[in-house]
């Protein structure tokens, strides 16, 4: 199983977004080709909630069209857990509906030690997926 590769610059974008939006959950879409993330699209959390996120459909469509035009696809649906571990919650699993994508969760539970993990979630079964951060 190939690791999802996230460039250090994009990892820092994820971290900046999560820290700026905490205690609200931050969310976005990681796009790219193969296993390599090439772009991060931060998305609006329409729930503006500390324990829930929902992306704005109009933004989703715009991002997916943009990725397709660039020869890319959605590699991972990303969100932050401002104060809980980097593992999918019951709600994350219930709403893991999009096929053939990974789910990344950035935990700020330990503010000085953020933890980013990737998961495959299929039919309610969660499997941690290898993740590598390039050029940190």
């Amino acid at each position: 199983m190939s690791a999802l590769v996230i460039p250090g610059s994009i990892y820092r974008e994820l971290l900046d977004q999560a820290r700026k939006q905490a205690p609200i959950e931050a969310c976005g879409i990681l796009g790219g080709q193969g296993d390599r993330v090439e772009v991060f699209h931060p998305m609006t959390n329409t729930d503006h909630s500390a324990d829930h996120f929902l992306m704005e459909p109009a933004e989703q469509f715009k991002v997916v069209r943009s990725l397709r035009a660039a020869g890319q696809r959605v590699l991972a649906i990303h969100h932050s857990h401002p104060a809980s571990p980097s593992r999918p919650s019951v709600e994350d699993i219930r709403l893991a509906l999009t096929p053939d994508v990974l789910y990344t969760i950035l935990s700020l539970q330990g503010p000085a030690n953020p933890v980013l993990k990737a998961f495959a979630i299929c039919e309610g079964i969660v499997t941690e997926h290898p993740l590598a951060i390039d050029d940190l």
Partner: protein
Amino acid sequence: MKLIVNGTDVQVSDGINVGQLLFKRKVRLPDMVSVELNETVLQRAEFETTPLHEGDRVELLYFMGGGCGTHAV
């Protein structure tokens, strides 16, 4: 007639509506899907009443959501 669904050409019966397209594509959870028709997001109540026409561009996406909640597993 031909539609472009999620960027791919698809042949469907003439006169079908959005709800019928979801059924035809065996969308498992149609209540959890957002639909965009020619770059306009549809309301769910419009699915069964919005006819599709030759060349329409349709995007179908599942909701993207979740959250830490109170019951992390």
